[in-house]
């Protein structure tokens, strides 16, 4: 069943949940994935992924550990080429664009990395100022004002002078968030924005993400497995697992879903279709046989 993405999917819950149809690339979409398969070498992590993110939308991509969420983000930034299908940012196919074109597209994106990826040779202020210094010719007073404004938004204005080694992991993630949004990009990709944050910081970060999307009309993609915070701010949720897109819809649609996979994931139940055990592979069997052979 074809579903117009970005449209409100609230209403009577349908079973199985509506899955996205093929997404045509359009400059109106900040990000679109059309029949995409992703992987490393011969190993396919995700396949048949269709997704669309419009300006002003907050989209949460959820799934268990190792389900391929970060792989999806790497494809969206052009760090990873799709094995099949098309990944488009602002209507441009990332698989067809040249180096300069990719650079131009990346200037319109902001990315929050899972580990923060702060530059350890720079202090907090210089980390946030880095994109401004590289891509703009703003006077120093304007750089200072903008950086302090963003640091203020994440509650770390008074930490501007500290070295990266002097701040905690949670603070580092908030600094990385300030850096990701300092250029006020049109598309912001957040890889686990709530990981390692205390409840207060988590709530403020969630509100900040929503506020940025509303105020700047930027598209936001959250890679997360934090159900509560992401459901509170997301317009659309995609659930990935078992190497594919399992479900998609508004937070309410998914909350009301009776689909066993969706129910198990959202409620954190131990039993269900989501396997806790890592799947058995021929490579593991070969290794096991070798180990057992050594014992004899």
């Amino acid at each position: 069943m074809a579903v117009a993405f970005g449209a409100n999917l609230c209403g009577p819950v349908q079973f199985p949940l509506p899955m996205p149809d093929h997404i045509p690339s359009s400059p109106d979409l900040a990000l679109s994935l059309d029949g995409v398969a992703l992987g490393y070498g011969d190993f396919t992590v995700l396949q048949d992924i269709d997704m669309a993110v419009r300006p002003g939308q907050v989209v949460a991509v959820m799934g268990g550990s190792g389900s391929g969420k970060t792989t999806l983000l790497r494809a969206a930034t052009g760090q990873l080429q799709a094995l099949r299908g098309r990944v488009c940012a602002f209507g441009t196919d990332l698989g067809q664009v040249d180096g300069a074109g990719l650079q131009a597209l990346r200037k319109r994106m902001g990315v929050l990395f899972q580990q923060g990826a702060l530059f350890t040779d720079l202090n907090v202020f210089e980390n946030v100022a880095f994109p401004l210094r590289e891509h703009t010719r703003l006077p120093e007073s304007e750089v200072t004002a903008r950086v302090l404004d963003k640091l203020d938004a994440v509650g770390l204005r008074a930490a501007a002078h500290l070295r990266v080694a002097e701040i905690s992991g949670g603070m580092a993630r908030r600094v990385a968030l300030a850096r990701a949004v300092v250029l006020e990009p049109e598309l912001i990709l957040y890889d686990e924005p709530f990981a390692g944050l205390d409840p207060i910081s988590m709530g403020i970060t969630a509100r900040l993400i929503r506020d940025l999307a509303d105020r700047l009309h930027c598209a936001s993609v959250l890679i997360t497995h934090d159900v509560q915070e992401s459901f509170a701010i997301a317009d659309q949720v995609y659930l990935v697992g078992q190497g594919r897109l399992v479900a998609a819809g508004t937070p309410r649609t998914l909350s009301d879903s009776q689909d066993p996979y969706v129910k198990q994931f959202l409620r954190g139940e131990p039993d269900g279709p989501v396997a806790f055990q890592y799947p058995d592979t021929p490579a593991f069997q070969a290794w096991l046989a070798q180990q057992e052979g050594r014992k004899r």
Partner: protein
Amino acid sequence: MTGPVQTLSALGRWVRTQVSGVGFFTRFLGALLARSGIAASRPRLVSQQVHFIGNYSLLIIIVSGMFVGFVLGLQGYYTLNRYGSEEALGLLVALSLVRELGPVVTALLFAGRAGTSLTAEIGLMKAGEQLAAMEVMAVDPMRRVLVPRFWGGIIAMPVLAAVFSMVGILGGWVVGVLLIGVDAGAFWSQMQNGVDVWDDVANGVLKSLVFGVTVTLVALYEGWQARPTPEGVARATTRTVVVGSLAVLGLDFLLTALMFGN
């Protein structure tokens, strides 16, 4: 038959890996040179690296230079004394340092101090996703991170070699003139007459420049190619010292033969 075939296959694989390694290394140098415009457009990035690489290596260079000068003063005196030529001690110390020991020992120390530091820094930046973060910010990490370090190393190395030679000569003077009692006038005048600016000093500077390019390039390449794990960074750091030092010694022989051979 399996044994020889396997050996041959392993040998072929090794040769192929080495050849492709040389290819990657050459392309890496080309990529750095192609992006070197940033050194002119943002000289502050280079001067920061000259400070980091050069200033922080200064202590080890000065201390080593002093001790090498002491030893040259002692050994030189005992050898020259046999022939009654101890007045030539200043010339011997100066030529040994300016032509050979200054550039070579500085380059070996540079590989151990600044080279390892560069490799570890780049490797850890890779492991911490800092280079990937730069890339998705539309900032070329090779241009922004590697090029300033490359030129910083090239500028710092001849300066450090000059400091090493200067301190070494002073060390030779302390031992020869102050402690042993060689005539100070003879020590300095023989040096002044015997050391040629172009044949000796300029060739020494050229050597240190070549060593600076080599060691910095090896250090950056190893960091760039390092596996993004603690073990990978440790291995890359070790390779910087081994490959950098061997390259310096090999190039020294080649350059000496070209510069000072008949």
